[in-house]
């Protein structure tokens, strides 16, 4: 799934709806492509964490691809850098 632009609180409600199909991930791994993602706030991080909590028990990996340096720092600040696998 591809993310782009700002994943702020305003965008996260709609994004949550769009991410729902990913929850049916048994037998699949998930790649969250963040190459075009410029900004993420806690609402967005919460969506990523929610997905991971669903995916792990199903044996699915969640990979994050292409985060830029600024976003990498946000992931580091919140400890999320240790929760996900990065491509």
């Amino acid at each position, binding site marked *: 799934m591809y993310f782009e632009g700002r994943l702020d609180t*305003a965008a996260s409600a709609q994004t949550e709806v769009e991410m729902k199909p990913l929850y049916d991930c048994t037998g699949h791994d998930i790649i969250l492509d963040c190459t075009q993602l410029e900004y993420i706030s806690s609402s967005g*991080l919460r969506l990523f964490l929610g997905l991971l909590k669903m995916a792990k028990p199903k044996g699915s990996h969640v990979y994050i691809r292409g985060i830029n340096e600024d976003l990498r720092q946000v992931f580091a600040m919140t400890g999320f850098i240790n929760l996900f696998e990065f491509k």
Partner: protein
Amino acid sequence: MQYQRHITLPNDVQTVTELGLFVDEVCESVGFDMSTTLKINLAIEEAVVNVMNYAYPTGTKGSVDIDAQVNNGGLDIVISDSGTPFDPTQKGEVDTTLSAEERSVGGLGIHLIRQIMDTINYKRVNNKNVLTLHKKLTKNL
């Protein structure tokens, strides 16, 4: 004339995009680089969204005032509202070493604010919550 800007938003998280534009403009005027601007944007969004979600009873229309000014060699952002007393600084520290299963989805907002801003100050004044966030201006390389 000291640099000062102000915006008032309703307690609707959809207006966070407008807040982002305001913060971008303030940070650019004050001289923060893009990377710092992004982080300040994040801290302020978290603080303002907390007010929008928690200060007013569900279904009540309310507003939040955001004032920006240069002060003490840095930027002060003052976020105030007339909602119920709510001190976000009282929230406990988040344990970022927990695994995905153990992490709770809450508490990230205030954690990010603490990581990003240099000082956070809350006071209750004239029936308003007043939260002041300060970020020092350091010379960019």
